[in-house]
């Protein structure tokens, strides 16, 4: 790694800080603008009255002024304390640490499948724009994007698990009867491989397939359309015309075109990945996947301030990291792109 790259990364990390501070303030304020009172929610026990609600408010620190509450929250955050979730009963930091890898794993799986299916289709469509194949691809993409994740998920479960027994039971990341591998990356598929536990690996990979496929169908349309657009642009460029005129073999021409379409495709994958991470709540619910989306939704329903704030903060950090990665990859794929902070 050279010095300019390190300074680039450092500068980018510094620019992320204001984003995180902004996200912290924003979610803190928005959660408190909601009319729900966590103390009233918690005081659900038989006979708990106004005095107990007041006591709970005091215990949660909700009786203090908003600036004081925010100061305390920020102070805790600086010490790595994200607060306590009363939905799970756990520290929010622990919950997020356990659940973020599960969500990332699922988003990666979905993106991978979408790329493997969508990119070749997009390239093929770009080679014959306006053909029947092109139209069929477009129709497929529209269909995939139009069906809600819930419907696709339940349908896949019915078909692949219930009727055909191809897929394992759609409940969670790994068969509960197996002992989970030691956590290294948090991606169970990778951790089980690292541990050399092939039974766990097969179970974890098997359970990834249906939820990843559901996520992939949702990402397929943008992957296919963007690949097609990037390839059409690249194929229409002067250097491709020149290469063709020079009689270079088709394979080579296609490779040059692909390399030039690389930067916009990487940018697109970054966007889709970020989107999938935030929007996979439904898939997580259907497949009982222990991810952060389902966690945030449960927190929101229970006025669990700390859980929702922690979720937004973590997602903001992941978005920033993905953006940075996209910039670095774009620079690698297309050396003409300057590194601007």
């Amino acid at each position, binding site marked *: 790694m050279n010095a300019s790259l390190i300074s680039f990364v450092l500068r980018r990390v510094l620019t992320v800080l204001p984003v995180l501070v902004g996200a912290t303030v924003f979610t803190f304020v928005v959660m408190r603008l*909601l*009319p*729900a*009172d*966590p103390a*009233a*929610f*918690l*005081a*659900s*026990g*038989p*006979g*708990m*009255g106004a005095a*107990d*609600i007041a006591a*709970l408010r005091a215990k949660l620190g909700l009786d203090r002024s908003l600036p004081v509450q925010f100061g305390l929250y920020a102070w805790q955050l600086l010490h790595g304390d994200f607060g306590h979730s*009363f*939905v*799970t*009963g*756990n520290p929010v930091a622990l*919950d997020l640490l*356990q659940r973020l890898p599960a969500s990332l794993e699922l988003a990666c799986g979905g993106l*991978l*499948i979408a*790329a*493997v299916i969508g990119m070749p289709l997009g390239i093929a469509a770009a080679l014959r724009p306006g053909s029947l194949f092109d139209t069929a691809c477009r129709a497929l993409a529209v269909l995939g994007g139009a069906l809600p994740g819930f419907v696709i998920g*339940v349908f896949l*479960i*019915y078909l692949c698990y*219930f009727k055909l*027994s*191809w*897929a*394992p*039971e*759609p*409940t*969670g990341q790994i068969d*509960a*009867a197996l002992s989970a591998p030691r956590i290294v990356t948090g991606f169970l598929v990778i951790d089980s491989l690292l541990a050399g536990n092939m039974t766990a*690996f*097969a*179970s974890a*990979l*098997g359970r*990834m*397939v249906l939820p990843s496929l559901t996520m992939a169908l949702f990402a397929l349309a943008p992957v296919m359309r963007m690949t097609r657009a990037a390839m059409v642009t690249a194929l229409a460029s002067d250097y491709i015309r020149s290469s063709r005129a020079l009689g270079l073999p088709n394979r080579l021409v296609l490779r040059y075109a692909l390399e030039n379409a690389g930067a916009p495709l990487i940018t697109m994958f970054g966007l889709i990945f970020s989107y999938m991470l935030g929007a996979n709540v439904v898939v997580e*619910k*259907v497949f*009982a996947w*222990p991810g952060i989306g*389902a*966690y945030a939704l*449960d927190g*929101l*329903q*229970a006025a669990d301030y700390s859980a929702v704030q922690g979720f937004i903060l973590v997602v903001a950090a992941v978005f920033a990291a993905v953006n940075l990665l996209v910039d670095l990859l774009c620079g690698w794929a297309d050396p003409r792109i300057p590194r601007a902070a």
Partner: protein
Amino acid sequence: MQRRDVLLGSAAGAASAFLPRLQTRAEAASLDTLRELAEAGPNSRDPHGAGVASPSLGTFTNIYDRLINFGHTEIAPGIFKYDYTKFTGELAESFEVLDDGKRLRFHLRQSATFHDGSPVTAADVKWSFDRGVSLPGSKYQLATGSLTDPAQFVVVDPATFEIHLPRGDRYTLPNLALTFASILNSKLIQSHATASDPWGADWLRDNEAGGGAYRITNWQAGQRVTYTRFDDWKSGPAPALRQISFEVVPTAESRVAALEKGDADIALQLPPQDIAHIAADPHVHVVSIPVTNTFRFIAFDTQTAPFTDARVRQAIAYALPFEDILQAAVYGHGTPLFGAKSAQPKNAAFPQPYPYNTEIARARSLLAAAGHGRGFSTTLSYNVADNDTAEPIAILVQQALAPLNINVQIEKISAADWATRLTAKTVPFFIESSSAWFNDPDYFFRIFFQGNWRWNFGSFNNPDLAKLLTAARWETDPAKYDALMEKAVGIVFQQLPILPLWQPTFEAGFKPGLTNFIYYIHGQVDYRPLRWA
């Protein structure tokens, strides 16, 4: 290697792992394990905690002992229901009711230990009750059985414990069988208590400290809990199941699929629209038990116009298509609380069917008499989390009231906000369901028809009813008690602060062969008696 090759290679790997059929639970089943799927999981191990989710009640049942347990009666082969007029010893080998019920004496099992091996003593029992009557999550419930003050709990000797009461109370024993009366390991909790948290509530929420039949050997909040049998358990016959995996599967379709494939042994919270289809499956045994302590209702805020006038509330009741609502909302899976023939209560039981049927002419004349012959506009609210059941009800109510010129706006309130709104009494007309721990009518009435709290859903305030309830509270003659409560039921029939619709049915899917299930008030699974036939 090209970037694309990497992608293609891993995709092929994924496909090959996908194809071989994995061993299912059905093939791996053994006779001492159980796998249970539920919609949500427990969030606490503290039986006196605030904000405890209902699945936690199952956790408390299995990891802690009570002094006594409810008796039970068989309602179908291998299926039992708790009987809260009968009690059996649990941690207490035996107990005596002395001095007209003013003194309860419990003889503890001398050999009983907590999970950490320390003996269970009367001092632990006393400390557990002291804690229960001090923490807000449990003290109000225990107070319904006259358990209010630590001075009432007396250690006679290490194996004998007494509860002293100001007067004999028929609600004391039932309260002792609830999870609020769980016996905790006092030394263990005290070692984690702090000056600001003298009862160790922060610690116990995340840890267990008991001596019940099961220990928690894995706890992943919101995902799964593994229970392992505590082999030194002395408070009952040794449980047949060695290990239970409780897993959270939020979507009903996924739970049902796993159950029908034989991968799950118990699935809770079955969707009403699928019950008939699931029950027809020979691989599943559906258990349906009418829930007698829970009811679904429409509430009117009797302190807010136009619902201040009983005639308006009655008019609405006469306009509703009850049978259609029951079918649309829960596919008929409930015990109707409407359509009684006589305006006189049948008996003293509550809830019982109200004397309302669809009679539009009567509704019109009542509205006219109340001065609302031209109708009015109002808002009907419900909790979004309750959408599956409440939405069909709301739509049918809206349609049914339109001919009376009652213009109903439907308002969905977020789950988080719902408690706030009900506590602040800012919803005049709403759909809700609620439960009481016990079935006695006076107990129900004290929760739902009086007091300035959320559970008085109709904000009802009736001096005659208050007198009847005060008299019934300590009435020991059953005939006199029934006479008082029949009058009380007559008042709510006529005054209608809330309009009950039906009582739900507890529905669970079992793998055939699982037997000795005991249904309790909380609708969670007690693993201790369960076994495979």
